[in-house]
């Protein structure tokens, strides 16, 4: 296991694992951004924000 030639140090992840972690992070950021965008639109419509 520790002698897996695909592992990269210092973290010991393989490139495939790193890409998997990154894909979850990107997806989460997109969902967060979509919810935040919707929330800001609702606030802009229903409050005096932005005049």
């Amino acid at each position: 296991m520790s002698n897996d030639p695909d592992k990269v140090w210092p973290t010991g992840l393989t490139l495939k694992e790193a890409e998997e972690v990154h894909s979850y992070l990107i997806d989460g950021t997109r969902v967060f951004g979509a919810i935040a965008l919707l929330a800001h639109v609702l606030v802009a419509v229903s409050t005096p924000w932005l005049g």
Partner: protein
Amino acid sequence: MNNAKMWLVVKPTVGVPLFLGAVAVGSFAVHVAVLSNTTWVADFLSGASAASGSAALQTEQAILPATADAATSLPMYLEAQADGTQSMRVILPDGRTATLVVDDLTQAALR
């Protein structure tokens, strides 16, 4: 997957909480800054109408300085009906209220 290789250098157990924490702290700081640097949030949360917020403020500013001479330090409130301009309620500094009836001259002229 442009930056995926960062996870070969940064342990996800460190980097992911750091990233999420930075987002949380950043968005919290922005909202605190908005709350502490504007007045309309507090006004809105304490019941000021959103749609007529600026109009109501302008009305108050136009009316209050003329009548506030007698009680400079005491507040006086003027409330308009949400549905129209038929009547307004004045809350005087001593707590008494009075109702002002506004004649709709446009409607009267059309009859």
